[in-house]
């Protein structure tokens, strides 16, 4: 099975976010990053399928040069090679522009059976890109996947629905799946994996290679403009208790819970 996994590099979970001087984006200088959480689960799921059924795992990443760090990490975890859309023209797109580029990059690969993406990026959070790619490729899709069983010519997958419901769905290959966090336990890269990753191929492609105009991708290809990025207004009706002195904080909180909220 040949599987392409879309991975996005995002700010580390607890990273302190600073808004850049353009007022529309995040200042990325010195920002610690990681592979988007659900993409890690998607990569793990792909590696397991190929370990069981044979084949190849290729990661595809649209992001600046700095995203090589995440690509190397994915290669160290066991992906065979990578496609990196790093040219400036690709950057700062919305989900529509990003998916257009990723789909075109996937089309340069031969005989792909399966594309996997995370269900949602932890930074932009569009929850769109994987499904957009599916429509661009003209392939069937299933989202929020929690289990995958390979069958003759297709897949049986378990989808998560709302409020504790699930659904088994069958679909033919080639197909696109978006993976929900928790589907498996993500492996760590081994030292051997990290050493091996250095020798693995990272292919960079330009819009030209993909048969796309510069106007189709990146900022120019957007269907949505981010006019402004800002801190939400504090709606905190909460009484905030300073926690530097834990003993005092505990005393104050218990007092409030007893006397004001009357829940103790």
């Amino acid at each position: 099975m040949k599987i392409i996994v879309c991975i996005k590099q995002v700010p580390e979970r607890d990273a302190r976010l600073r808004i850049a001087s353009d007022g529309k984006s995040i200042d990325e200088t010195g920002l610690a990053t990681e592979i988007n959480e659900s993409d890690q689960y998607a990569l793990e799921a792909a590696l397991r399928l190929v370990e069981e059924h044979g084949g190849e795992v290729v990661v595809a990443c649209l992001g600046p040069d700095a995203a090589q760090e995440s690509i190397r990490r994915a290669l160290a975890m066991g992906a065979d090679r990578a496609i990196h859309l790093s040219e400036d023209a690709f950057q700062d797109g919305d989900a529509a522009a990003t998916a257009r580029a990723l789909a075109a990059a996937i089309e340069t690969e031969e005989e792909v059976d399966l594309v996997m993406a995370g269900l949602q990026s932890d930074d932009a959070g569009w929850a769109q890109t994987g499904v957009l790619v599916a429509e661009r490729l003209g392939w069937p899709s299933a989202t929020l996947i929690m289990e995958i069983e390979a069958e003759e010519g297709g897949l049986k997958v378990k989808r998560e629905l709302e409020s504790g419901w699930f659904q088994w769905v069958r679909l033919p290959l080639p197909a696109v799946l978006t993976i929900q966090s928790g589907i498996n336990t993500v492996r760590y890269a081994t030292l051997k994996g990290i050493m091996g990753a250095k020798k693995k191929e990272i292919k960079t492609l330009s819009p030209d290679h993909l048969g796309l105009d510069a106007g189709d991708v990146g900022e120019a290809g957007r269907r949505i403009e981010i006019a402004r990025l800002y801190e939400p207004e504090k709606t905190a009706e909460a009484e905030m208790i300073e926690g530097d002195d834990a003993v005092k904080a505990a005393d104050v909180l218990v007092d409030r819970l007893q006397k004001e909220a009357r829940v103790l």
Partner: protein
Amino acid sequence: MAGAIWAVTESGGDGLKPVSHEVIFAAQVIGDALDMPVEAVVTSAGDGDAAEQAAAREVGCVRLIEDGKLAPYTPDAYTAALRRAIEAEEPGLVLFPHTYQVRDYAPRLAAALDTGFVSDVVGHRVEDGDLVLVRQPYQGKLNADCVFTGEGPNLASLQAGAYLGDEAARGESPAEIVEVDVDLSDVEVRTEVLDTFQEVEDTVDLSRSDVIVAVGRGIGDEENLEIVRELADALGGQLAASRPVCDNEWLPMDRQIGSSGQTVAPRLYVAVGISGAIQHIVGMKGSQTVVAINKDPDAPIFAVSDYGVVGDLFEIVPELTRRVKEVKG
């Protein structure tokens, strides 16, 4: 943007789901501000009185899209049906609830129409006659103002609870129900639905608990859970968790609170090391008193809390346990 605003509804066995009224209300408010007519869209047959319920709201009409291929739900059939309806009627703006079903097919629809889709919207403003949609990227830590670059039909999905469904205006008389002919007989549905089920493995019913202490990824590791368990015991409450804690199998799935877990409304909810993502908040926002303990003063959980302690949970939780034991004797 020219044309109508569509409020695409979702229904279950009892008719319209609550989120559908939220979408109708949002369409009414935005329609008022932009002077665009509002129409409700009801898909699929057999879902109670969904079309009649939508028609009771103040809408120009209800567009009913019926076809045998729409049940059970599949992304192929829904994408084709909505695409045909939109291409025939040319609405300017199509609003959806941000449900799992909409996540599953609306991006396909956006790609098929090659249009903009602002997902998970929490509010809007109208500036110089232009619609600005507000969403919360970076896990709800920041706000982003979004505008469409094209004339439409444009798409947007609304976060559950962002608009108040109860406020959707009712019409003086029922609106007309107009059938939209989408004839899906030529559409190939590639996914086959095999089985839809609820998983019931010795589920603890947290919805009955009076006191819940919920722990998040801030706890760092399974072995640290003990301090939170002790607090729950001291308070006489149940231990619960955010999704990552269950994903990591530090606690079983049936302890998860949120959109893919349980919905609870205890007298006291203590959130320890939980950031307050919307998918968590929908499961606990009905709680009477909410306490959050988090080292990040900007954590979104504080916005839905009554008491917030900013600090290191590893220092605060044991002290809190000690103090609770003292006063409870």
